[in-house]
């Protein structure tokens, strides 16, 4: 009996192994003077069920806009998703009505943001803000919703959950607020949890706690995580697979282990070299020269070319494609094209 259901589940899982499939996503911002910021420019990736996928890149590379595009929360105008498809469990999110999309937000996809200080509404209690989501999506009565909020807060590690529901955001520390945000994002048991730099604003000691909690919760709720960060150190701790983003595009994609042991794109190598390493000398720390170009002024050819150590003539002519090097490694660079 037991075995039978198990094997059935396995088959089912194989069939719908992919949770999120993003195909050729382009999100542009139309600014004054006819400038177009190509914040997300032809991004494709898949996220498997139960997976923790990291999206890394320097500030301005388009990570947040990618995640907001998934939620269809791009400020419009000036922003607009102009092309591509986003399939969550087979449903094309871009073809949903705004009303149906609202049922996806908070219910199928939970989201955590960078600033726990400002991401909670200062004038409502923690309980109110968690219960609100439950009342909206799970049609719970107020009382049940608060009860569930207490349970969720206990789950994310609040010993005094009964009191915390009645407290306001300003009464909690940054780490506690982020825990509350996690409880809120997970309240409706979402299939996907998007965390946009969830630990960047926190103390180093608390960062690890929050990351561990997220992974623990992911297992408990059997969901998947899209973790956005610019810190490759964070990625090493929790991610299964990594997407490296630069100039609105994916430049390298690999399993976490592969990426750390065998980075290919000069940008990835640069990012890895700029992680402070406590064991070796700080002197080794080198960062990539220059900055990410603004999304409305990408150079012709490879977008990383002006900052690249290995730049060749043809890099300035056309943008290389994201090519599969082997089964779990893709890279966008002429160094690896025959």
């Amino acid at each position, binding site marked *: 009996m037991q075995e039978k259901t198990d094997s059935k589940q396995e088959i089912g899982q194989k069939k719908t192994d992919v949770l999120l499939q993003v195909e050729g996503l382009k999100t542009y911002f139309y600014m004054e003077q006819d400038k177009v910021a190509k914040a997300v420019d032809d991004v494709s990736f898949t996220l498997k069920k139960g997976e923790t996928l990291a999206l890394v890149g320097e500030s301005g590379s388009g990570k947040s806009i990618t995640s907001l595009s998934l939620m269809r929360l791009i400020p419009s105008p000036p922003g607009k998703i102009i092309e591509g498809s986003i399939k969550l469990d087979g449903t094309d999110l871009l073809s949903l009505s705004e009303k149906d999309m609202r049922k996806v937000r908070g*219910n199928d996809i939970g989201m955590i943001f960078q600033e726990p200080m400002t991401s909670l*509404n200062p004038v409502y209690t923690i309980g109110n803000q968690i219960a609100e989501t439950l009342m909206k999506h799970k049609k719970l009565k107020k009382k049940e919703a608060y009860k569930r909020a207490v349970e969720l807060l206990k789950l994310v590690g609040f010993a005094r959950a009964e009191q915390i529901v009645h407290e306001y955001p300003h009464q909690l520390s940054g780490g506690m607020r982020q825990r509350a945000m996690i409880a809120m994002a997970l309240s409706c048991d979402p299939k996907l949890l998007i965390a946009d730099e969830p630990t960047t604003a926190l103390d180093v000691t608390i960062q690890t706690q929050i990351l561990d909690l997220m992974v623990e919760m992911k297992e408990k709720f059997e969901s998947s995580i899209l973790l956005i960060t610019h810190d490759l150190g964070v990625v090493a701790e929790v991610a299964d697979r990594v997407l490296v983003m630069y100039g609105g595009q994916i430049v390298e994609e690999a399993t976490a282990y592969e990426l750390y042991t065998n980075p290919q794109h000069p940008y990835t190598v640069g990012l890895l070299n700029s992680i402070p390493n406590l064991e070796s000398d700080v002197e080794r720390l080198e960062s990539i020269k220059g900055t990410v170009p603004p999304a409305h002024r990408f150079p012709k050819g490879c977008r990383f070319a002006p900052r690249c150590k290995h730049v060749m003539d043809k890099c300035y002519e056309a943008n290389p494609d994201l090519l599969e090097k082997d089964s779990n490694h893709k890279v966008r660079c002429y160094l690896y094209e025959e």
Partner: protein
Amino acid sequence: MHKYIIRRILQFIPMLFLITIVVFALAKAAPGDVLSGERLDPNIPAEVYDMRREALGLNDHITVQYWNWLSSVATGDLGTSMQYTGRSVAELINARVMNTVYLSLFALGVTLAFAIPIGIYSATRKYSLFDYGATTFAFLGLATPNFFAGLLAIYVFGFMLGWFPSQGTVSTVGLSGMELFLDKLKHLVLPGFTLGLASTASYMRYMRTEILEVKGSDFIRTAKAKGLSNHSVLYKHTLRNALLPIITLLGLEFGTLLSGAIITERVFSYPGLGQLFLTSVQNRDYPVIMAINLILAITILIGNLLADIFYAVVDPRIRYD
């Protein structure tokens, strides 16, 4: 919360004292007294005035005079008017104060009823035709002086269209009950809208700005990411935060309304404190001026007190400090 309110009320008391000192000092600092000016009859010898001054206590030391004035004010005795000989100041004020209260409340009601919804609507439809219209109206409203708006209202709605009375508080004596209420209300319309015009215009702008500002905050993005409807994002999450600064401004509004009432009441021959104040200034009726100043100042203080208390009710961050 209770502690906060109690603390706030305790702070109110020394402020009240300071105000009585200022009101008294201002009246004393003004040139002349009750017995100078027009009343100075050359046929009466100066000694007589001196005797009268002595009898009135005007030759006493200033602190003694203040103390005498304060203790009589505390018992409700505001003195006797000079222009309406023999009538007590309290009596004059009692006859008019409610008219001014009605007028101010009407104007405040106009402000809130128009400014908040229009501000919200403008903000949610930024740069729409409606928004441009509201903005234009706001700038016109702010640029038009009270008296001019009043005269225009009298001319258009009172004289040309004849929709509303433009003078006084009642049409005829002898009305009562519902009839009296409606008649008074009708008399309030023109002065009320005139008095409320400028603040409606400015609050509309405040409301719009605040909503737009709050809309950009992180917690609004969170609310949207939770899948809440536009309605709850706007009315639950945005509005309450946007109203916070407005509450403080409303506390100051009491003062603006009362000083605006002075002009408006004059234009509409509306028998309120403002009109009494103007005639008292013209006639150097110091006891009345002092009493009205005192009332104005106390009203402003109470307005601020109420705003602070209300703010604490709405904003949890205040309560626990």
